[in-house]
């Protein structure tokens, strides 16, 4: 079959979307042996046993049927209590919380719920690889606002304001950020909140890394004054509770937005896996000690990693959250793609080139420190040796 014939079968929307830049590196790294991988965007812990056991038990007890579309009510109540106790923002479990198949589905249904053809959504970049494509697939136009290392990858209200047009519907934020690990404090977020109010914009706030902040407490965007009514909080269990393979996320949003998202969710997914929901319920009931233990370990590894980078001459801001460092490789004269490929082939260390995360990502590499200290020590040694040729 010719390419032309294949293209005829595919929608223009899908054809216009590039495959994730991560894919190429995955294929390359997977074909090689003895790789130290800093390319992994997930915890290196296995899901805590209590959570696994609760899920096994739910299956033993025969909880294998569909759940309510929005998720089992016990889990929504637990999420509601969690949001109140951790972030001081109240959500009604009946009408303002939706359990999704990972935070990724939450972003997808969120975009599809609000975007009309041609609407613009501001995406603060570098960002998680799926935001812009999901805006596009919903029929919208992603508008990139780039951040850079000089401002610790924090975005300012002025930067966002410059990108606003009369088609702007919403902005997509992610703090703590993947891939930069950057965080935003209350004062910085307040400026953006005022902007959202002034221009009547919705705010999608991906807070999947909220539990993984190391220097300052996380501030939920919806907890800022007047923001609950215009904020969609996206979160989930993958990162804090080491539950990536469970595909369990959740959305907290005002009733009208939530019910629109629920409509899409019920037709496309029906509900999140029931046994995973029982696992997540246990995670919220008894898992916070595990979260704390894992967070302490990430913090120690972050400290080690960032200090070691500075010793080997790799400029890196100190990430306040998540488990990524995003050092600059500009002084090598290579593009991030060239750097990552050369490093992989010569020293067998897998990192993700920054350009795959959009504007502002070029000139950087994403290095996950969610790996053993032995791997981190080895990778610092190898990257240090690699850098000597420049």
């Amino acid at each position, binding site marked *: 079959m010719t390419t032309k014939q294949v293209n005829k079968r595919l929608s223009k929307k899908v054809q216009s979307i590039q495959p994730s830049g991560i894919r190429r590196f*995955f294929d390359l790294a997977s074909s090689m042996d003895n790789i130290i991988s800093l390319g992994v965007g997930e915890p290196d812990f296995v899901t805590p046993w209590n959570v696994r056991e609760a899920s096994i038990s739910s299956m033993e007890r025969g909880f294998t049927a569909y759940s309510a579309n929005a998720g089992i009510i016990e889990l929504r109540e637990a999420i509601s209590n969690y949001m109140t106790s951790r972030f001081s923002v109240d959500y009604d479990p009946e009408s303002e919380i939706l359990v999704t198949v990972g935070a990724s589905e939450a972003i997808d249904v969120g975009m599809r719920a609000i975007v009309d053809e041609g609407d613009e959504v501001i995406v603060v970049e570098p960002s998680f690889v799926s935001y812009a494509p999901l805006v596009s697939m919903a029929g919208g136009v992603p508008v990139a606002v780039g951040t850079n290392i000089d401002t610790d990858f924090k975005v300012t209200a002025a930067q966002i304001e410059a990108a606003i047009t009369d088609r702007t519907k919403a902005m997509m934020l992610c703090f703590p950020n993947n891939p930069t690990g950057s965080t935003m404090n209350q004062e910085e977020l307040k400026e953006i909140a005022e902007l959202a109010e002034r221009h009547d914009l919705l705010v999608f706030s991906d807070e999947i890394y909220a539990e993984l902040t190391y220097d300052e407490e996380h501030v939920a965007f919806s907890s800022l004054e007047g923001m609950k009514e215009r904020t969609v909080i996206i979160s989930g269990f993958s990162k804090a509770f080491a539950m990536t393979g469970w595909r369990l996320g959740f959305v907290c949003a005002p009733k009208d937005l939530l019910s629109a998202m629920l409509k899409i969710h019920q037709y496309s997914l029906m509900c999140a896996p029931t046994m995973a929901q029982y696992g997540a319920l246990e995670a919220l009931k008894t898992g916070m000690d595990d979260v704390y233990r894992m967070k302490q370990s990430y913090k120690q590894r972050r400290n080690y990693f960032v200090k070691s980078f500075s010793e080997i001459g790799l400029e890196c801001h100190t990430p306040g959250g998540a488990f990524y460092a995003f050092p600059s490789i500009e002084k090598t004269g290579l593009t991030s793609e060239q750097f990552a490929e050369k490093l992989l082939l010569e020293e067998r260390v897998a990192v993700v080139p920054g350009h795959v995360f959009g504007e502002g990502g070029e000139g950087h590499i994403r290095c996950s420190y969610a790996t053993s200290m032995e791997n981190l020590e080895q990778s610092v040694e190898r990257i240090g040796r690699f850098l000597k040729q420049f």
Partner: protein
Amino acid sequence: MESKAIDILHIIEENGRVSIPTLAKMVDASEEEVKGLLKKLEDDHIILSYSAVIDWSKVDQNEGVTAMIDVKVTPQRGVGFDQVAERIYRFPEVKALYLMSGAYDLSVVIEGKTMSEIARFVSEKLSTVDSVLSTTTHFQLKKYKHDGVVFGEGEEDRRIVVAP
């Protein structure tokens, strides 16, 4: 205790082989500061020793026998259980000794080369201590988890090499 010292304790409890330079970076301190903290923790008998957890069952000719012995004793006036405990824990065969609540008083962990060596220790040494009233010996058949470490093959990293 300052939080850096507590962080150090957690780290070396999990892996006693972490080097000073690495430890210093992990807890955001200077190497001198870490050395000082370790020295203080050792002097204060908070760090008692640095040890490895070894699965001896995998080492040829080195397989021993471990027994846990429940001991009932008569506490002595003035010193309670401490004196009899001391008499027991000074034997080199005794690897651990705990005062327990419940059906018996002391729990003694003994390691020996053979079952008969342990039997001899119980009959000749332990049961002849003055205030020991009775002993019940349980032999360990297999070690699944010890000091928080699961024995057997470790869980491998099942993550794909590059992921979002």
